[in-house]
């Protein structure tokens, strides 16, 4: 099972959580399918992930109290679970984004400087 995961997921560990938080922050409440569509759209299909992969991440974020899920009806009159950001989630997004930016900056410097 773990072998499978490593093979398919191109996203670094923990990054998916940040992306989900970011997406929910800009788009407002979304269900898992909507989230998957949005990710494909913004990444210009560069990010190719099984949509099922979102579920453990969503649950993890929910357990951490960063997002919360609620059942709502879609435009097509279907029951779906919509996830939205909590206050704790907003804070975490802010912190994580900062951390990510610092790390990205550092990586850039290191990789750029080593040539």
């Amino acid at each position, binding site marked *: 099972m773990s072998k499978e995961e490593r093979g398919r997921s191109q996203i670094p560990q923990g990054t998916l959580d940040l992306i989900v938080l970011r997406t929910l922050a800009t788009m407002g409440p979304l269900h898992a399918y909507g989230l998957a569509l949005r990710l494909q759209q913004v990444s210009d299909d560069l990010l190719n992930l099984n949509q099922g992969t979102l579920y*453990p991440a969503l649950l993890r974020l929910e357990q951490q109290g960063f997002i919360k899920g609620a059942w709502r009806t879609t435009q097509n009159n279907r029951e779906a679970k919509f996830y939205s950001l909590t206050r704790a989630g907003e804070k975490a997004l802010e912190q994580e984004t900062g951390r990510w930016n610092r790390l990205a900056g550092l990586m850039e410097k290191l990789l750029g400087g080593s040539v």
Partner: protein
Amino acid sequence: MQRLTQFWAKLRALAGRGRSEQALEKEISAHLAMIEEEFRRQGMGAEEARFGARRAFGGVEQTKERYRDQRGFVTLEQFWQDVRHAGRSLRKSPGFAIVAIVLLAFGIGVNTAIFTLVNAILLKRLPIPEADRVVQFEARMKPFTSDGFSYPQFHELQRQTSIFSDAAAFSGNRAVLDSGGDSQQIDVELVTGNYFSFFHAQPVMGRLLDQEDDRVEGGHPVCVLSYQAWRSRFGADPSVLGRVVRLNTFPFQIVGIARPDFVGAELQMRYDVWVPTAMALPLTWNARSNPHVVWLRTLAKLRPGLNIQEAHARLRAASTGINDILPKERANADAMFDFVGASKGFNTFRTKLRQPVLILMGAVALVLLIACANLTNLLLARGSERSQEFSVKLSLGISRWRLMRQLLLESLLVALAGGVIAILLARELIAVFLRLFAGESGQNLSISMDLTVLAFTFAVCGLTTIVVGLFPAWAAIQTDTTPTLKGGSGVQKRFVRRAMIVVQISLAMVLLFGASLFSRSLRKLKTVDLGFDIEHVAVIGLDFRGKEPITGSPALALDEALNRARRIPGVESADLANPSMLSGQSMTSDVKPRGGSKTDMTRHVDNVYFVFASQQHFATLHIPLLRGRDFSDRDRKGAPAVAIINQRLASLLWPGQDPVGKQILGGWNRENPEVIGVVGNSKYSDLRESLKPIVYEPLDQMAVMGASLEVRSRMPLAQMKQQIRKIVSSTAPGFQIANVSTMELLRDNVIAGDRLLTFLSVLFGALGVVLALVGIYGLISYSVTRRTREIGIRMSVGAQRSEVLLLFVREVILLVGFGVVLGLPLALILSKPLESFLYEVPTADPLGIVFTLILIALGSLVASFLPVRRATQVNPVEALRYE
């Protein structure tokens, strides 16, 4: 913080697993439906869209599984699954489950019962914080040590406040409680005023006794009820406070109820009522101030910070001072006072029972080991039957570790179920124990299970699981998924299976040998020649209610009661004696010849035993009168002092001479009595002792506070008691009937410990043997079943039934042989510590060895008979068609 939030979320998920599982299902199917819709909108066909949706989503089941992993605690959830799985698996084979649970219930049950004794007698500590400083007083006299003190002695000890910060005394008694209407026997403890504060006791209701209640002798008729007595005898009626009840017809006012958990000085005893020592007279017929009667036992607390050596030294130094105030004529007047630690409460029988209890603990450990060996074999056999199930599981991807865990869980469930039944079983066994040990006299033993015992039982369950389950579980995970490679572990399993049988046989031999030793010893004790005849003799204790020794009319009343008893139809003879033989009481003194030759005068016999008896004492007990005469009506108070001695004393004082007419010096009579007769030798108070030198003196000439009426007759005891009660109430109302017994019951009481050890060792021996035989039966039976096909082939190529028989008989003989070779030396080694408990039976008793061997051999024969017969009856045609 975040981790904590996540942890809680997981815990919540564990509780609401069913609900969230549904929600997940709903969420994912909605998701799939939405992708499908989108694909259909893009123009795909229904079928194509459905597959496309699944492809886009990825593995639905994998997602769910990973989701579940994230949701809860993986191991915990798996654990619950495994527990449920183990339960189901056991339910599917109820036969195995029942046998296994019963095996362990017995094995753990006897352990729980005996550990309850160990705990109650050896482990429990006084429930007070300063238990470490608690000591009990002892008086060291020349030949022995006594823990009894008179009140004046205790009072002096209590005054040693530079050594002890607190000292309390107590004395247990039976009394008749009359609470208006019916009267019943209860256990009363006389206690000093500080007794309750010594143990930091609190009342449930009213108040407990204090110093003020114990000041003036006879002046404080108050009592405290135990919680249990308040409930059982007064229906927990709160209005009993202030009520007056009668104890031995004397009125006492109830002032309080103790808490249910109050135990007092002796952790193994239970009392119904507590009364101040100031009220000794109505309850013990002795004045508290009497310096001669040693009736109190004591506990004290060492002054905090005081060095133990220093404390011992100070108390020894004080002994002389204490002695100075005491009367000089008593043997204990020159006692040295000392103390020993008593953090586990007053040592009533801790020292006496320590070794027997530990021996029993060892025996039950062996029983449990046999049960464990047995169960290991059962599990191995079950494992072989399930090898297909295991290989399917393994090939479906279950980890070997998890399979092993499942199997160990099965063992644990069996052990726990066995443990629960064991606790119920142990309760019954303890009740039997109390009846046997306590007999008629000590109804107030308090030995019960507590949390320590429960913890012990569960620890044993856990240990059993590992001992029993580990090898079979390990063997199970060696199961190879490819059926061709089965060799290795099969051989190991076979070896372990046989080793387990050998272990069972050898341990059963140890138990059996021990039981045979105890049984033979008890048999010898019961048939030992006492020098008197104990059959058909009733012994009825008559206690004088007055304050002074019996003289004048009470003595006449006693005589009249004796004469009336002799006239009861069916009575052969009757007498009065003090003390009665085997009653446990004894009187001793040293004796010399008076007058005679110079060499006669140098003779001196220490520890001569005394009996004060009426006429017909020897006739009633069938002690032969060898010379001279019995006591007669002439030998009254005021008449010349006379005595009858036994042969042993005669030969010690006057070897080769006729003692009749000679005088003895010493003893309990103020005058020096003249020997008027010589009687046969006998024992006195114990069955193990050698024949004692004894002096008999006429009861009429002695100062006593009562005597036992000994009546030889074939009348049932209850009927005799009624007759005597009538006689006593009409002719001697100043007396009360204290104890009603027979010589045989007194004898049984003397050997209560031996009877208990014998009973339990036989019980454990029988249990061990039965378990071992069940083990042999199981193994041979299993082996026959496995080899049915082989037997069929052998028989079809011409083997005789006798050869098949030999095949299995050889196996049985080999197993039993190994068991004996191992068990016999083990039995001989382990029986060594029993030596001090055996009477005239050597620990390497050859008869016991023979008995054990025969029983093991016969037993194994019987146990293997049925399965072996099944082997010889195998029909070759059917056996070959079978597979």
